[in-house]
C-alpha cells in the first residue's frame, strides 16, 4: 500500500458523507493530485468491501501551455499594446487608449475552474487558438462498502509457515486471488508428438497380440529390400531416383545361398506355380546396399527366419520405424519417414480375415468406416488400398495399404504351402499431422521444428 495515510484520509472523508463523493472532489478537498487518490482507491478496493467505487468519466477544460502563458503575461494582443511606448509611434491614430484583455480574463476564469461562465462558442474559439483543451478525466464515484471502516487493516498476500505455527492466520485478512490469471507452468520435460503417437500405435499392436520386429537396421541389401519380396530388378523403385544406395559399404555379403538361388530362379524362370518375370537376374544387383525403403525388408527376414525354425508356428508381427526414399520433397514428403507395419502368418488366412484385422486395427484408431480398393503392389496379391470416410472432408481418403504376400515371395523362403501371410502398412507422420493439425511435415519432424509446439502438444489418445 503506497500511502496508508492517504487511504485513511479518503475513508474519513467518506465517513462524513451520507451519500457518495467523486474522487476529484476528494482530491481538491484534500489538496492532493487526483492520481494519488486513484491509487488510494485502488488499494482500498483490494482490501475487500470497505468501499465501493464506480468508475466515471467527466470532461473539463484545461489551459494549454500557451494558455497558461497568457494568464500570466496577457494575451498577445495586449502584450503588443503594452509594448508600445507612451511617447507614441507613427501609427498614432491608435483606436484605443487602453484595452481590456478579455482573452486573459476568460482564461483566468477557466484556470479558476469557473468554466461555466464561458459559453460554448467562446470555449471553442479558445480551443481553436490552442489555448484551451478539453480533457476527459476518469474518476470514481465513491460510496461506503458493506464492510466500511475508517481503519485500514493490512491484508496478507499469503499464508506462511509462521502464521500456521503461531495461529495468527486466524486474525489476518488475506488478499483475494485473481482466478482469471493462468498459473505458473510447471518446470518439466516434454515428449515429442510423433513419438507420443508412435507409443499409442505400439500399444495398439501389443493389445492385439503382435510381437515387435527388430527394425534397428537402416542399412539393407537390395536382396532383402527387393529381391526377396519378388520385386523385379528393373522395377522403378530400384532406380537411383527413388532409393538411396550406399557407396560405402557398397555391397552386402553372406547371403543364405540356397535361398538366394531359389529367389533367382523364381524371378528369372518362375516356379512354385508362377511364370516368373523371365529376365536375367543378377547377383550384383541384389548385393547393392541401400537405406531400406520399407520395413517390409525386415518382415522378409523375419518370415525367412520363421521358415527355418522347422515346424511352422503362427505369428503376428509389427514394427514402427524409419524408412528412406530419395524422393522429391514437399509439404507432406520427406526423405525419411516412419512406417507402421503389421503382419500375420497362419494357415488358411483369407482376404476376409485381412479386412477383419484391418477393421479391428482401425477401430482402435477411432476409424470404423472402411472400404477397400483393389491396387497393385509387386509383393502382394491381392493388394488393397484402405480408405476411410472422412467426416470433415465428406469423402473417402486413403489411410493405408494392405495385401496378401505372393507365393513367389513365401515359398522360396520355405514357408509351408497352406500358410497365408497378410500384411498392412501406413505412415506414422500422416495420422500424427491430422491428430495435431499440422499441415507441413517440417513443422513436425526434424531439427527445424518449433519446440514450443512440442511443449504445447496434448497427450495422444487415438480413439478420441
Amino acid at each position, binding site marked *: 500500500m503506497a500511502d496508508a495515510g492517504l487511504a485513511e484520509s479518503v475513508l474519513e472523508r467518506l465517513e462524513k458523507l451520507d451519500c457518495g463523493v467523486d474522487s476529484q472532489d476528494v482530491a481538491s478537498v484534500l489538496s492532493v493530485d487526483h492520481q494519488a487518490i486513484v491509487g488510494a482507491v485502488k488499494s482500498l478496493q483490494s482490501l475487500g468491501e470497505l468501499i465501493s467505487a464506480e468508475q466515471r468519466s467527466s470532461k473539463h477544460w484545461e489551459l494549454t501551455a500557451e494558455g497558461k502563458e497568457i494568464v500570466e503575461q496577457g494575451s498577445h494582443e495586449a502584450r503588443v499594446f503594452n509594448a508600445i511606448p507612451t511617447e507614441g509611434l507613427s501609427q498614432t491614430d491608435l483606436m484605443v487608449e487602453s484595452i481590456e484583455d478579455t482573452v486573459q480574463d476568460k482564461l483566468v476564469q477557466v484556470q479558476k475552474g469557473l468554466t461555466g461562465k464561458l459559453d460554448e462558442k467562446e470555449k471553442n474559439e479558445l480551443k481553436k487558438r490552442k489555448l484551451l483543451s478539453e480533457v476527459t478525466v476518469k474518476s470514481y464515484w465513491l460510496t461506503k462498502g458493506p464492510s466500511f471502516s475508517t481503519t485500514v487493516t493490512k491484508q496478507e498476500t499469503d499464508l506462511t509457515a509462521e502464521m500456521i505455527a503461531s495461529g495468527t492466520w486466524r486474525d489476518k485478512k488475506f488478499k483475494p486471488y485473481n482466478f482469471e490469471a493462468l498459473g505458473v507452468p510447471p518446470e518439466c520435460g516434454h515428449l*515429442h508428438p510423433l513419438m507420443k503417437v508412435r507409443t499409442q500405435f505400439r500399444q495398439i499392436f501389443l493389445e492385439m497380440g503382435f510381437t515387435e520386429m527388430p527394425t*534397428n537396421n537402416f542399412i539393407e541389401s537390395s536382396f532383402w529390400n527387393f529381391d526377396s519380396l519378388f520385386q523385379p530388378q528393373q522395377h522403378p523403385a530400384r532406380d537411383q531416383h527413388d532409393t538411396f544406395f550406399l557407396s560405402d559399404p557398397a555391397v552386402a555379403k553372406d547371403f543364405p545361398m540356397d535361398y538366394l538361388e531359389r529367389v533367382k530362379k523364381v524371378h528369372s524362370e518362375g516356379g512354385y506355380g508362377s511364370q516368373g518375370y523371365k529376365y536375367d537376374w543378377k547377383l550384383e544387383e541384389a548385393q547393392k546396399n541401400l537405406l531400406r525403403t520399407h520395413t517390409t525388408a525386415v518382415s522378409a527376414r523375419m518370415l525367412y527366419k520363421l521358415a527355418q525354425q522347422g515346424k511352422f508356428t503362427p505369428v503376428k508381427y509389427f514394427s514402427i520405424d524409419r524408412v528412406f526414399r530419395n524422393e522429391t520433397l514437399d509439404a507432406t514428403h520427406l526423405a525419411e519417414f516412419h512406417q507402421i507395419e503389421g503382419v500375420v502368418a497362419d494357415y488358411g488366412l483369407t482376404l*476376409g480375415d485381412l479386412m*477383419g484385422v484391418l477393421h479391428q486395427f482401425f477401430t482402435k484408431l477411432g476409424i470404423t468406416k472402411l472400404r477397400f480398393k483393389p491396387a497393385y503392389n509387386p509383393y502382394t*496379391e491381392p493388394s488393397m488400398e484402405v480408405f476411410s470416410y472422412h467426416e470433415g472432408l465428406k469423402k473417402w481418403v486413403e489411410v493405408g495399404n494392405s495385401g496378401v504376400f505372393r507365393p513367389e515371395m513365401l515359398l522360396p523362403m520355405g514357408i509351408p504351402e497352406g500358410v497365408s501371410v497378410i500384411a498392412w502398412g501406413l505412415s506414422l507422420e500422416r495420422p500424427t499431422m491430422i491428430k495435431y493439425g499440422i499441415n507441413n511435415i517440417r513443422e513436425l519432424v526434424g531439427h527445424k521444428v*518449433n*519446440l514450443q509446439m512440442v511443449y504445447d502438444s496434448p497427450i495422444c489418445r487415438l480413439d478420441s
Partner: protein
Amino acid sequence: MPTVSVKRDLLFQALGKKYKNVEIKRADEEFDELCFEFGLELDEITSEKDIISREQGDVRAAGASDVVLYKIDVPANRYDLLCLEGLVRGLQVFKQKIEAPYYRRVGATDGKPQRFIITQETAVLRPHAVAAVLRNITFTQERYDSFIELQEKLHQNICRKRSLVAIGTHDLDTISGPFTYTAKAPDDICFKPLNQKEESTATELMRLYKNDSHLRHYLHIIEDEPHYPIIYDSNGVVLSMPPIINGDHSKISLKTKNVFIECTATDLTKAKIVLDMMVTMFSEYCAKPFTVEEVEVVCPDGSTCLYPDLAYRKELISGDTINQKVGIKESAESLARLLTRMCLKAEVTGKADEIEVEIPPTRSDVIHACDIMEDAAMAYGFNNIARTKPKTYTIANQLPLNKLSELLRLELAAAGFTEALTFALCSQEDIADKLGKKISDSRAVHISNPKTAEFQVARTTLLPGLLKTLAANRKLPLPLKLFEISDVVLKDDTTDVGARNNRRLCAVFYNKIPGFEVIHGLLDRVMQLLDVKPSRDQGYYIQAASDSIFFPGRCAEIISHGKSVGCLGVLHPDVINRFELTMPCSALDLDIEPFL
C-alpha cells in the same frame, strides 16, 4: 502409378452412355465408383485449358481446349488399361456389355510375311527385336492421338524410359522389306530424322537432341557406345535409330493404312509384352478387327520366330482354392463367370470344382494362380466379402531394446528434458567438420546418390541433430534442455550389410552457464534408473578424456563395468559457433545397448 487422360465425352460414348448436362455430376460420381471397384482411381476431372492455366497462367491457356478430361490412375502392371481403347474394353467386359475379343496372329495375304533380320552387331547393345503389321487400319484424329499416346505411356512405364524396350511405328507403304536391324558407328549413320528437314549423322543428332526437352532423357542409353543401333529397309532407308528417334521417311499419318511396328529391346519378355499391347489395343481399327499380321524375325544364329506372340495360356484352378483364399463360398460356375468379367475367360471343366482359365495376351500381369484369385475377388467386389476375425493365437512381445528406450524416454522427460526428433541422414560436415573431426576417421556409411548435401551420410552421433534443433529455437527462454533416444549407423564388418544401428541417448543443456553439473547429474540419474551404481569396479565412473567436440579439460569418458559407453562434457566454443549457437552448452552421449 501411370495416369491416363481420356476425354470424358469420348469415354462415355465408347461406354455407350449418354448424359444430359444436368446429370453430368452424377455421371462423374458413377464413373468414380466404377473406377474404385475396378481398381482404378479417377484422380482428377480437368481440361487442357485448366492444366495449361495452372502450369503456365491464364494468358497461355486462352486458346486451349476446354473439353473435359478424366485423369485416371492405372495400376502399374495393367498395361492393357493405358489407353482409351483398353480402358473401355476392360470396363465393358467387366460390366458384361461385351465379350472380351480374341486376338489372332494371321499370315500375310500373299503368304510371305515381312522379314526382320537381326545382325550380330546388335548383340552387345540391344540384342532383341520383335515386329508386327497392323493391316488396313483406319485412323481418325482421336485414334491416332491415342496410338501415339500409348507408345509414350509404354515407353515411360514397362519400357523403363526406353532403356528396356523402344517402340518404332512406320507407314509400311513407304518402305519395303526385308528390314535389317544392325549397329553402326555413329558417323556412318546418316538419315533425315522425324520432323527434321535435313539429313544428319548420328553424331550430329546426338548433339542436336542434347537440348531437346523430350529426347535428351534417352540419349544416355547409347551415347557412349562405339556403335548405335539402326534399322534399314531393303533400299537402305532408315526406319529408326532406336531408342532415340524414327526416320522421317516412314512416319505415320492419319492416312496411313498399314502400320509396321518394331520393338527393339534388352529384355525380350518385355519386348513381346509391349508389342502385344500395341497390336491388341489398335487391331480393333483394322479391316479385320483384332487380327494382326505376322512378321518373321530372323536372329543372328539363323533361327526364326513369328511375332506378335499373342500367346494365350491356360491355367487350372479349383473353385475351393479361390473360395478359401478369398473367404467366400461361390460355386465353380459363379467363379468362372466372375473371372470372365475380368477378361480371363473361364469355364468349369466338370472335374470336381476345377475351373479352366484362359489368360489372354493383354493380361501379362497374371503370372500365378494368386493373380487369378485376386481377379475373382475384384469381380466379386472386395467390399462384398465378409470381414472375419482370424483365429490366430499369439502372445505379444516387445523388442527389449525398444522397451528400454520407451521407459527411458519417459524418465528423461520427467527429469525435465524435452524430446527432439531429428533426421537420421545428414551432411558429412555435420558429423565431421563441424565437430572438429575428419570424415575419413568416422565409421559413417556414405550414400552414393544424394540429391542434396543433407543426405550424404547416415548420422554417427545424435549430437548434431540436437545442436541444430537448439539453433532453430534460440528465441525460446533458457535454459533449453533436449534429449533424443534413437539410432545412429556405424560401419561394422561383422554384419552381412557391413553396417549396424546403434541405439544412443543424447542430451544437451544450453544456457548462459555451461551446466556441466546438470548434464552430469542427468548421467547419474540415468545410471540410477538403469540400476548401475557409481563404482570403479562394479558400476560406472567418469574419467577425464579429450575430444575435439569438447572444451579442453571439460570432457569425460563414461566407463561402465570396465567398458567405455559414452562421454559428456562442455562443448568446444568452435563447435558452438559452427552450429550457429551463442551460449555455453554441455552434452551427454551414451550408448544404451550395453544396458539391455
